[in-house]
């Protein structure tokens, strides 16, 4: 059985709870074991790296150090923002022994770097697991047009997140969608920023960026936007009403997580996968694939 240390992060227990639910359900169905990091803390997100360099490294380093107590060699963080903070720790502390010691002096358990960060989408999109998924598809998503939306922080900057996919036109999620029978559309907003980090401080601009993404997806013929980051997802889903009001449009565009769609195709119950948790009603999309 493949095992990974699993860092849900704050979002997967709150705003992105359906990402956590579907991740657990799908992993179980595929025989992947996700071992939650014990007593994990918040990674600090943008607030920490805007405030202090050392803080922005020490918070995620504590989590990575705790992951080293688990019988695993790799850790996954489904949230792109958390993933980016872990990537920063690996990159910076891996190159600077003095900085590593400074960070470790603040931690009860030192970070050694023995548990490596793995791109979350890749634990499903790697060739072996993908063919496993293909074999286990019970309910093909044929006819469903999906706009795969990767957001910024899983793929940028490639040198630091250390991922081989194309940062301008990534394919990992597209490949998963094809394996499920769905049709990933071609569109240019795959990795454009949704402005989630400005949601509180510069809301108007955040709304504009969301509108650009939603409009482009609709105009490209998508039935839904598939998300991989809980911050992007919450922004496009929960804020969609605000966007529609401000721009006088109606999108009603469902924003499921890619793990929810894998689950659907594997024949899992939409409720277990957290579909009722989505703000924009996914029923039109579910009907299209014959599960509602």
């Amino acid at each position, binding site marked *: 059985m493949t095992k990974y240390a699993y860092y849900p992060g*704050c979002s997967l*227990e*709150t*705003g992105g*709870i359906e990402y956590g639910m579907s991740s657990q359900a799908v992993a179980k169905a595929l025989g992947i074991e996700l071992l939650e990091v014990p*007593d*994990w*803390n*918040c990674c*600090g*997100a*943008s*607030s*920490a*790296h*805007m*405030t*202090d*360099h*050392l*803080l922005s490294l*020490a*918070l995620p380093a*504590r989590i990575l150090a705790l992951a080293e107590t688990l019988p695993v060699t790799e850790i996954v963080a489904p949230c792109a923002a958390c993933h*980016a903070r872990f990537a920063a720790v690996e990159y910076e502390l891996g190159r600077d022994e003095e900085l590593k010691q400074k960070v470790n002096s*603040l*931690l*009860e358990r030192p970070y050694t770097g023995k548990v490596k960060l793995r791109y979350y989408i890749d634990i499903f999109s790697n060739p072996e697991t993908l063919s496993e998924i293909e074999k286990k598809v019970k309910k093909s998503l044929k006819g469903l047009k999906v706009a795969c939306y990767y957001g*910024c*922080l899983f793929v*940028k*900057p*490639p040198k*630091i997140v250390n991922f081989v996919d194309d*940062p*301008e036109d990534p394919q990992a999620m597209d490949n998963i969608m094809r394996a499920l029978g769905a049709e990933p559309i071609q569109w240019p907003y795959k*990795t*454009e*920023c949704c*402005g*989630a*980090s*400005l949601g*509180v*401080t*510069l809301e108007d*601009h955040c709304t504009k*960026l969301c509108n650009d993404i939603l409009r482009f997806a609709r105009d490209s013929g998508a039935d839904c936007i598939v998300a991989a980051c809980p911050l992007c997802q919450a922004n496009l889903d*929960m804020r969609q009403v605000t966007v529609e009001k401000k721009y006088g449009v109606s999108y009603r565009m469902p924003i499921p997580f890619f793990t929810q769609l894998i689950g659907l195709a594997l024949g899992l119950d939409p409720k277990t996968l957290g579909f*009722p*948790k989505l*703000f924009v009603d996914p029923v039109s999309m579910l009907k299209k694939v014959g599960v509602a």
Partner: protein
Amino acid sequence: MGEVNLSQVMDRNQSFVDRVIEESGQDIRQCYQCAKCSGGCPGSSEMDYPPNQIIRMLMLGMKEEVLNSRTIWVCMGCNTCTTRCIRDIQVAAVMDTLRQEAVRAGYVDKAQTVLNFNDSFLWTVRTFGRLFEPGMAMLNNLKTGNYMKDMQFGLPLMLKGKASMFPHRIKGRREMKKIFDNVQGGK
């Protein structure tokens, strides 16, 4: 921007420029102003100076203008500039350093909303170990005096089971306190 005597500001602010290079780990002197960073920047329409100009101003030692700019607080850290920079400069990392420098040097006029948010966010992390969104929102609204901000999201989030009334407290709170006590702006 008024008239600036470049040789004077350069003399005066060389140590600042050196510190930004050192702290960010980015050699901004490699920039040859292709402006790809600004072309792809999702925040540039809201900025007073696009990212390439900030880098150029930095090279010229224009500390006050850079630290007083709106740009550094609009940057979302999406790393599009860093990804596309043909001179291998992590522009977003430079923006992080500039924000930290701005706070240290007291240039906070344009930053108050961001700083309030960051302080509220980090207060919950320092106290509980994890982000506690309702607490963060309340604290932020108290700081800004905008008491009803984002309250329209509160009830729907509760109804969907996406927000908890009470924070989760991790066991390692003492360790969290130690981390925060030993960094800048952690208090």
